[in-house]
């Protein structure tokens, strides 16, 4: 069905963004306040997907999780998890690939909050966790929104990683960006244009809404 790749893209982006959000909150808050010597190393790893060709990530992912390898076959035999050419594999790769887009905005949002807010909360007897949820995160709303939207949009725009580890299986791993490539290869420009136009308009609308909201242009409608 013609809508399948689009629905799959949407599902992938939503699942990835949701899981990324859960992972990124503790990671970003750790990075924002740690004095650990490991910080530069972790920051580098988080930022790698920004500069690394997606094919590199996909390639190593493929090698690591291939059932032909020790680790991949162990996962398959013990947990019945097959990450190569499957939707869960796609989600895992997307999480790694979009990690900086979620972590960076949240980290910088948290870092820009005056340290005295955190200290005031501690002096009121509040734990680190309660301080994070009730003071730090509510005061980083624009940064969190930016992170969510960028991660979502970036997952929609994925191509290389998905192709490497997902392949091109209809209804399983054939997302819209791959479907476009596929249709162009088959000279079906009409279908390719259909997918492309939808992705173009969707990502434009998503990014525009972030800039409008964070720029306070929509203040009367958004509290």
């Amino acid at each position, binding site marked *: 069905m013609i809508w399948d790749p689009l629905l799959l893209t949407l599902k992938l982006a939503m699942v990835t963004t949701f899981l990324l959000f859960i992972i990124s909150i503790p990671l970003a808050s750790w990075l924002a306040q740690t004095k650990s010597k490991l910080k530069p190393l972790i920051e580098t790893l988080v930022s790698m997907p920004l500069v690394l060709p997606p094919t590199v990530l996909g390639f190593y992912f493929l090698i690591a999780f291939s059932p032909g390898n020790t680790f991949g076959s162990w996962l398959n035999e013990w947990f019945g998890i097959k990450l190569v050419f499957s939707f869960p594999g796609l989600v895992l790769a997307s999480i790694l690939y979009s990690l900086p887009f979620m972590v960076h905005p949240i980290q910088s949002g948290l870092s820009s909050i005056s340290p*005295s807010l955190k200290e005031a909360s501690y*002096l009121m007897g509040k734990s680190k966790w309660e301080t994070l949820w*009730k003071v730090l995160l509510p005061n980083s709303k624009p940064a969190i929104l930016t992170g969510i939207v960028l991660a979502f949009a970036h997952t929609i725009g994925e191509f290389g990683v998905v192709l490497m580890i997902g392949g091109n299986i209809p209804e399983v791993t054939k997302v819209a960006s791959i479907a476009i490539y596929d249709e162009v290869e088959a000279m079906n420009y009409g279908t390719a244009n259909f997918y492309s136009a939808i992705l173009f308009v969707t990502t434009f609308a998503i990014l525009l809404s972030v800039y409008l909201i964070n720029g306070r242009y929509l203040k009367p409608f958004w509290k």
Partner: protein
Amino acid sequence: MIDIQIQKKLDSPTGQMSLDVDLSIEKGQIVALFGESGAGKTSLLRILAGLLRPDTGKIAVNEKTWFQSEPKSFSLKSQERNIGFVFQDYALFPNMTVLENLQFAAGKKGTINLEHLLELNELGDLKHKKPKNLSGGQQQRVALARALAQQPEILLLDEPLSALDDKIRRKLQQHLLEAHKEYGLTTILVSHTIEEIIKLGDWVIELHQGKMVQQGRPSELFASKEIKEKFKVTAEVLSIELKNDSFEAQLLVQNHVFTMAFSKKQGDSLRPGDRIVLASNDFKPNMYKK
């Protein structure tokens, strides 16, 4: 009773400085920390609050150890010290209204009457506003009320009144005095202003380059002992110029500027920025009621 005996190396604008303090503070007092900026006043408050860890020494409050470096290194968490802290930037939570800020500080104990606290600080009408919609003086009152809402035993204030204009400052000093009495606090405040310290403080401790240089009652400490005159004010010379045979100087006393004439001999050594003491044995000024 607070006993502090600590040492800590600090980075100051003028290079490394060693904060080395040994002092006791009686329960129920208002103690002012006085000294130029960079003397270690704020660091001392932060150490007491557990926000900064001393290198060595010990802190005990009502016989209970809060910090010790030996025999076994121990530091009570900030969360468990029950300190009300008014930060220089007030540190109000922007996502909460005035009332919510107070409720967050009060926690679930809920034994304090927040409405009364709001009224005491004249915040009743503002309780549903967010901090960003308040003036500096209002924010300061919220910060004070919020620190009281958590029912602390010790209240620490880091130059809370420095950014405010004169009228509001006097009003807040009054609020602070009332709250200190009503809630039976031990209060330590950092201040540059001698007037403020004399008005509020029971005791003043002067720090210089991380060391205590003197301490005592404010009225005694700030009145230099050699001069026995009945009337005495400290003034700063703003400008001075020679007119005919005498000097005419503009002087700043607290926040008032006035002009005064000096003889050639007196005025010769004066430069703008000098601090002088004006004293008289036989002072009969004209007086008007305001």
